[in-house]
């Protein structure tokens, strides 16, 4: 089952990561590059005090940068694919089915768990926005993803009514506690660009996760025949 999950994750993750990476380059990257002009102080909007925050290369077409983005997009979705297909395989082990249509729902649930739920507290950030310390945000991010994954699993597969209540608590808790926030709001990037970036990142993330879920269920099914263990 291990090799079946790994093979599924490699294929589905590469497809989802490549597609998501291309969507990212077309829809998200122009907004990000625009924001970096404000971050580096090349352009400023009214009333802001540009802070030099390290430049990330040219804002023009940068092939190496774009290829790295595609590569990392594929790596990230292979990583997500390993977890998603292992959880799907757990259902198969309990003699449940994961059809391709169900796979699509799995993918959308994955998007909610790792992108939308943490994004509710820590919206996808353009470079240059003010934010709390990285460590505290990474801890909150990880805890929120874990709580949301458990909650969605309970909602989807548990039959006990109490599980539904527990799921609601798990869904709400990270946001009632609240994400770490910066002490001062002093980002040099205009809010119009920041919100546009967040919306685009969510949209591209949702599409990538839908593809990941769809292909994970597909490859798990076709590798079922050569599963020896």
């Amino acid at each position, binding site marked *: 089952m291990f090799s079946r999950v790994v093979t599924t994750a490699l294929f589905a993750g590469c497809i989802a990561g490549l597609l998501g990476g291309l969507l990212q380059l077309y829809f998200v990257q122009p907004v990000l590059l625009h924001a970096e002009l404000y971050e580096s102080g090349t352009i400023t909007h009214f009333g802001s005090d540009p802070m030099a925050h390290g430049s990330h290369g040219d804002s023009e077409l940068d092939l190496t940068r774009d290829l790295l983005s595609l590569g990392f997009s594929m790596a*990230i979705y292979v990583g997500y694919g390993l977890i998603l297909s292992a959880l799907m395989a757990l259902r198969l082990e309990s003699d449940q089915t994961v059809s391709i249509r169900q796979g699509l729902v799995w993918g959308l649930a994955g998007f909610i768990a790792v992108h939308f739920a943490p994004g509710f507290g820590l919206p996808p950030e353009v470079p240059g926005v003010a934010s709390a310390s990285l460590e505290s945000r990474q801890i909150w991010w990880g805890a929120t993803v874990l709580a949301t994954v458990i909650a969605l699993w309970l909602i989807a597969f548990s039959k006990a009514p109490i599980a539904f209540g527990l799921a609601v608590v798990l869904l709400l808790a990270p946001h009632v506690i609240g994400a770490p926030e910066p002490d001062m709001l002093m980002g040099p990037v205009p809010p119009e660009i920041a919100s546009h970036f967040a919306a685009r990142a969510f949209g591209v*993330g949702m599409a990538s996760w839908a593809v990941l879920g769809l292909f994970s269920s597909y490859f798990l099914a076709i590798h079922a025949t050569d599963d020896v263990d």
Partner: protein
Amino acid sequence: MTNNTITRSSTNSSSMSRILPLIMAIMLGVSVLAVAGHAQSPTLHGAAHDTRHATGFPCH
């Protein structure tokens, strides 16, 4: 006590042997994400920068 533990673990071994590979796959996935999404070495951060921002990982 020791015998008791061994007996119990051998009865559970079939379900454990089915679930253990899945736990390993999940841990492998978490490791991939820790490196690609969260590790803060300057080279790695620079290379993964745009994707981390776009996929909503905490960055910087």
